[in-house]
């Protein structure tokens, strides 16, 4: 906005010319490539799977139907499902959706809260060894997940937590180095005066944390919460190691099984695309609500 209102003399790119036109065309092409697959997903999810092959190149639904969504959500009868080229097998989609919601919500709450506590101690309290401990925390950013996943699997197995919610949640529940790092940066910027005023009023550290620090940091806490939720929702490697069982299976794990459980008659692409579309809805909604914040959070604060 700011640049547009500047006098034309200083504008470097305000003049319309061939180069500028080409640049817009390039940008447009990239946007089309970014969005087209989403359109294709929706188009397939609204098609009749049985006749999908008749118009493989049409960008509109083939024989428009809500059937794939009904199959996924379990409101279609076996006959209806098979008539449209579904397998007719029950998907238990609601259960997977519920599991994803439970797992992602708990991870988000735990990770953001405990990381905020630690970040407060690192940013605002003085204690021996503080900066050394913080440095060790941050070096954990460098350890690739694959390296800790095998021993973590052994640990969770020995604790008897395989195929339980705590087993899926535990490694992400208490902290991630990034969350601590991210929040510490914000807490460092809070004015000491507010804190000291509260202290003179006789507030202890816990009161200050809950009544002063947390409310003053609601914006970064919300940003971190949204990012954490999206990451937890999309996580695949860990839950498919420790949460294969139906009762705790999350959406990503359930969806990935599609490949190996393809029926003989040919895959139910329409049903699969409907399922992936629904699986993407929560993160898309969060993005609609917090989009500007997420976009602006991508800075050089560290990793991710």
């Amino acid at each position, binding site marked *: 906005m700011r640049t547009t209102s500047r006098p034309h003399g200083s504008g*470097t*790119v305000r003049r319309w010319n061939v180069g500028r036109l080409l640049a817009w065309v390039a940008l447009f092409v990239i946007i089309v490539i970014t*969005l087209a697959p989403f359109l294709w997903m929706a188009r397939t999810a609204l098609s009749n799977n049985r006749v999908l092959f008749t118009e493989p190149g049409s960008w509109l639904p083939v024989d428009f139907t809500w059937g794939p969504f009904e199959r996924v959500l379990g409101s279609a009868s076996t006959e209806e499902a098979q008539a449209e080229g579904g397998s007719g097998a029950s998907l238990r989609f609601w259960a997977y959706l519920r599991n994803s919601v439970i797992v992602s919500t708990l991870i988000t709450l735990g990770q953001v809260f405990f990381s905020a506590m630690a970040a407060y101690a690192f940013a605002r309290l003085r204690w021996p060894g*503080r900066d050394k401990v913080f440095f060790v925390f941050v070096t954990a950013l460098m350890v690739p997940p*694959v390296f*800790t996943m095998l021993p973590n699997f052994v*640990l969770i197995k020995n604790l008897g937590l395989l195929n339980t919610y705590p087993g899926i949640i535990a490694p992400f529940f208490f902290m991630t180095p990034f969350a601590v790092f991210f929040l510490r940066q914000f807490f460092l910027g809070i004015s000491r005066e507010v804190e000291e005023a509260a202290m003179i009023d006789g507030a202890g550290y816990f009161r200050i944390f809950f009544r002063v620090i947390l409310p003053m940091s609601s914006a970064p806490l919300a940003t971190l919460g949204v990012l954490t939720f999206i990451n937890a929702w999309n996580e695949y490697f860990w839950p498919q190691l420790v949460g294969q069982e139906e009762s705790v299976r999350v959406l990503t794990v359930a969806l990935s099984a599609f490949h190996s459980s393809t029926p003989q008659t040919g895959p139910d692409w329409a049903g699969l695309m409907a399922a992936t579309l629904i699986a993407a809805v929560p993160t898309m909604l969060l993005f609609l609500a917090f989009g500007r914040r997420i976009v602006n959070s991508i800075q050089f604060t560290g990793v991710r």
Partner: protein
Amino acid sequence: MATAAPTAPGAAGDDAPAPVDNPRPRWRGGETRAALLFVAPAMIGFLAFFAWPTLRGLYLSFTDYDLLTSADFSGLDNYRRLLEDEVFWNSLWVTLKYVVINISVQTFAALLLAVLIHRLTRSVVLRGIILLPYLISNVVVALLWYWMADYNLGVINEMLGWVGFDPVAFFGDESWSIPTLALVNVWRHLGYTALLIFAGLQMINRDVYEAAAVDGAGEVRIFFRITLPLLRPVMALVLVLTVIGSWQIFDTVAVTTQGGPVDATRVVQYYIYDQAFNRFDFGYASAISVVLFLILAGVALAQLKLLRADESDQS
């Protein structure tokens, strides 16, 4: 900017004189106790799920361990076996091919996209749109492209047909599968990488561009003479992040090709998974993890060295 940087000012704090408002002894007992309580949950998580498994993984790589019986120390056996394991070397080679294609295409495209956005528009909506693919899971992205690139019904082969090409088995052909996986993940990460670079571009003072325009420099000249040199430290950091992520390709392979055809897409992390959970050879799988870790550490160190060299050039 780098993750370690912000610790620097604090690190001196231990010995520096305490802030003026605190004439009491260096550490107040109550404050230390409160701090330990605040750090405790995160510390438990850190020790249990980051520090301990790192040491344990290192130890397991020197053992023979099948999860059922206890781990038997076997010295360097796993590493000796690695040297002669052709599938392992193949997995390194395959992953390297993936990383090279993935990173080169992604970096060039993201740099182009970031510069386009920077020079053309300030629209947040547009930046939101290009970030969309990054917000859906690897699994969904993989399935979506698996469908679009299907040999019989996929829209990509249909469109190739319109311009007279034969259909391609993108995921099923040995020579196509790695480039296909690499490009699918470019699609997912392009917008995010571009926004990282864009954040770097915003740190460049706009006056520099104004001055260049006054001097009559064209866009191409501005890009090569101003943008690129000033952006080099940012690009180095972006490369560290993306290359390390790229080496750990797993989800897309697990959902689509599962290592095939033959071993054409058996990337390192998929091979680790294979050894651990299909053959229950945890010791061997840990040894491969150690090697992958060392590769990643080497890559990061080399790139950070480049980054530092560049920074000193600038100032």
